């Protein structure tokens, strides 16, 4: 009897240990939880033979040059249909847009070769490249551009990246010229032209395009297995130089599974979080790539007040001295070291690789100066607990961080404690954040080519709107005026100047605490050259941006 009990006990101990290890080892794993990822990428990698060779006869022919890449899972989150806002980051994958972003973050022509803007800023005319064909072989003409823009405008609710609400009319002037008429001047219209991929008017099918879009980009989809893999091949009709690599398999897996797969030599490109930046993988090198993605903390600028049942404002961060003391007092280098293994660059505003970036540039880690600033504002540590108070109010606020940003929030809190400011980092879901974003600090990530982010952050008319715009309730009539000016400009230069001025003025009130310009880390196989010269600074969304210049990649 007793003996049996002991056996039972030992068995239970073993089972529980095993179970808890399993729980830790593969919990949350998607279909590709295992190290070899559901569909076995090696099959596609090895001889370059795709499973559905017969199903998709391809003139591009699967040669020996194929790669397998893990570029995060965001590319699997939504379909690939450009009409529904897929791949809207200013670089072409399956569908090319009228414009595209050049490595210097300026716009260059893609399907358009030239464009003009009328003097009143209302009419945009694009001259299309002639002889461009879609991946099904049909010709791309002005009619397709008109179709794409009209469809998106009709179904705007399905597409949140291309905002065409100001588009009054679009018409074809012959086969290779398109004219857009806007209802009011809107200088960021060029951003829209760069993010909306053109779909063919004849072949468009809302159902199949989610997985098998037809476009004029350098790639076309051979096989799409939702949340497993996307196999892309070179588009044989691509107007420019054909990609040197015939076939790319993008696999879906977990971060840690991807690292394990890389170690066993199954992957050529692996996106990794900064947590893994200190790891090494034989046969691969770690590349931290430049981004325009900044992490910033919103600091409510108004005093606390309940508006429509939603708490807004925060009595501590409403004091601009607190906000300024944080901005100049924290040590961004140390925070980056602690939170990101040192991967990333300190940021005090939007990054210099954006032409419209114009925030303040200043030295940080000025602890003494920050302390003096706080003391002059009446924030003094009276009870000796290491944190300041003023009129009985503790210098303390909550900082909400979603997903993997908790580490940054904790590192910031650790550093701000030295200033006598108590920040309570809290891991939160986006639902929690939406409920509390107007009254607590939130870690945000912003990184896009379009300067409309300036309006999102500082326009007082967007404050407390329920969306993620101006959550701090920043109000400055002069800034609103400059934003309106920037939107209404005809010339790109004048618009950029107005955007810069708006940021420069708003940033003097420190409504946002910029911390870091993150870098996207990838392990890249030594046999693969990802053409660093033609990589554009990555926009927000760690993972897929590395494929921006995939057509220029070469195998050694």
């Amino acid at each position: 009897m007793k003996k049996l009990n002991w056996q039972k006990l030992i068995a239970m101990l073993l089972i529980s240990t095993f179970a808890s290890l399993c729980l830790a080892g593969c919990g949350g794993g998607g279909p590709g939880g295992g190290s070899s990822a559901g569909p076995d990428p090696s099959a596609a990698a090895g001889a370059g033979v795709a499973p559905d060779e017969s199903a998709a006869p391809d003139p591009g022919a699967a040669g020996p040059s194929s790669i397998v890449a893990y570029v995060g899972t965001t590319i699997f989150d939504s379909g690939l249909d450009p009409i529904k806002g897929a791949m809207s980051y200013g670089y072409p994958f399956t569908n090319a847009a009228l414009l595209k972003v050049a490595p210097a973050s300026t716009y260059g022509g893609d399907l358009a070769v030239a464009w003009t803007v009328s003097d009143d800023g209302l009419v945009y005319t694009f001259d299309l490249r002639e002889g461009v064909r879609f991946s099904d072989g049909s010709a791309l003409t002005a009619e397709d551009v008109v179709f794409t823009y009209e469809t998106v405008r009709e179904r705007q609710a399905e597409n949140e990246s291309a905002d065409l609400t100001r588009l009054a009319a679009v018409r074809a002037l012959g086969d290779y010229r398109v004219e857009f008429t806007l209802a009011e001047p809107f200088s960021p219209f060029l951003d829209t032209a760069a993010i909306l991929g053109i779909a063919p008017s004849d072949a468009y099918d809302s159902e199949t395009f989610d997985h098998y879009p037809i476009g004029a980009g350098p790639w076309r989809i051979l096989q799409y297995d939702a949340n497993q893999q996307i196999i892309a091949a070179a588009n044989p009709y691509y107007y420019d130089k054909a990609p040197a690599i015939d076939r790319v398999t993008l696999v879906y897996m977990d971060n840690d599974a991807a690292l394990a797969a890389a170690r066993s030599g199954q992957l050529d490109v692996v996106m990794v979080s900064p947590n893994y930046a200190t790891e090494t993988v034989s046969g691969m090198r770690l590349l931290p790539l430049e981004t325009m993605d900044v992490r910033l903390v919103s600091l409510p600028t108004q005093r606390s007040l309940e508006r429509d049942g939603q708490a807004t404002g925060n009595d501590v961060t409403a004091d601009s001295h607190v906000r300024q003391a944080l901005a100049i007092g924290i040590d961004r280098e140390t925070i980056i070291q602690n939170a990101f293994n040192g991967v990333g660059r300190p940021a005090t505003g939007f990054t210099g690789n954006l032409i419209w970036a114009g925030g303040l540039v200043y030295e940080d880690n000025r602890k003494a100066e920050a302390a003096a600033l706080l003391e002059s504002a009446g924030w003094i540590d009276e009870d000796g607990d290491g944190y300041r108070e003023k009129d009985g109010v503790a210098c303390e606020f909550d900082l909400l961080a979603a997903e993997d940003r908790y580490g940054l929030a904790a590192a910031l809190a650790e550093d701000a404690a030295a200033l006598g400011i108590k920040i309570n980092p809290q891991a939160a879901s986006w639902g929690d954040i939406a409920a509390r974003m107007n009254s607590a600090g939130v870690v945000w990530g912003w990184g896009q080519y379009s300067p409309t982010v300036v309006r999102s952050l500082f326009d007082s008319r967007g404050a407390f709107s329920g969306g993620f715009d101006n959550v701090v309730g920043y109000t400055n009539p002069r800034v609103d005026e400059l934003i309106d000016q920037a939107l209404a400009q005809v010339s790109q230069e004048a618009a950029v100047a107005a955007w810069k001025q708006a940021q420069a003025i708003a940033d003097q009130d420190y409504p946002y605490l910029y911390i870091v310009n993150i870098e996207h880390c990838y392990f890249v196989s030594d046999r693969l050259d990802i053409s660093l010269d033609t990589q554009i600074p990555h926009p927000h969304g760690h993972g897929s941006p590395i494929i921006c210049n995939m057509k220029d990649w070469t195998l050694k």
Partner: protein
Amino acid sequence: MFSRKLSQNHRQNPSRLGYSAGAAGFRRPDLPGHPLLNARQRVVLYTAIAGVYLLGIFLWGLLLRPEAYAVHYAHKFMPPGVTHLFGADFMGRDMLCRCVKGLANSLVIGLTAALISSGIGVILGVSAALTGGLYDKLVLLGVDCCMGLPHLVLLILISFMLGRGARGVMLGIALTHWPELTRLIRAEVLQLREALFTRAAAKMGKTGFQIAREHILPHIFPVYIVGLVLLFPHAIMHEAAITFLGFGLPAETPAIGVILSEAMGHLATGKWWLALFPGLMLAAAVILFDVIGENLKSLLNPISGNE
């Protein structure tokens, strides 16, 4: 309560009881070479050890100051050693203190949830058995409904609806773990209701409530206690599970579920101590509760209590 009396007798004078048991024809391991402690003493000892361990973790965790598991970036990923017995995590927090604090949090949640859940079980079980009729059927339907759904799904739904956090988890566990106990107690009471002494009490004019209080409750007390203790491991496991899945305690609270889900991302880089020790501690706590429960069962049961 005759089992309690017997057990007291036993402890006071084991030889006399042994003798009488022998006289009644029971076989007894009273021969040369029998263990130092008899079965009852051993059971009491194990229960005491398990109890002391769990109570120790509980008190240690409650008294632990947050500084003990504070962020300490210089010790990032320090392997187990003298400074950190269980190693340190990605923010340099001491894993031993986090585990202890996490387990203590789990125990608080488990205790509250188990108390509420067993309370519901007793009230529904006794009332259903005594009332009978439609009410009984309704309670049984509720039990079947609750048991028909996977625990974890129901837990996630309830916890999410209540805004997660400690309150959501606690109520989630409390509201999903009553059916088994309800069923058990109902069956027990049905049996007791037919017993001669309850029928006699009824004939003597006692009300249903009086009978429940004076005759039924004392008899189901041992069942209740065992049920309560055995609810604990369930509650703790489920707390860890839904926290691991992200529907329970928030990531900044030390909790075994949080620790394990954080550890997941670092296993691929060889930080084994982040998952192993918390996993072992969780497993140990669950097993020890099971040991206590099983032992109590055998002690409180009138038949096995005398083996």
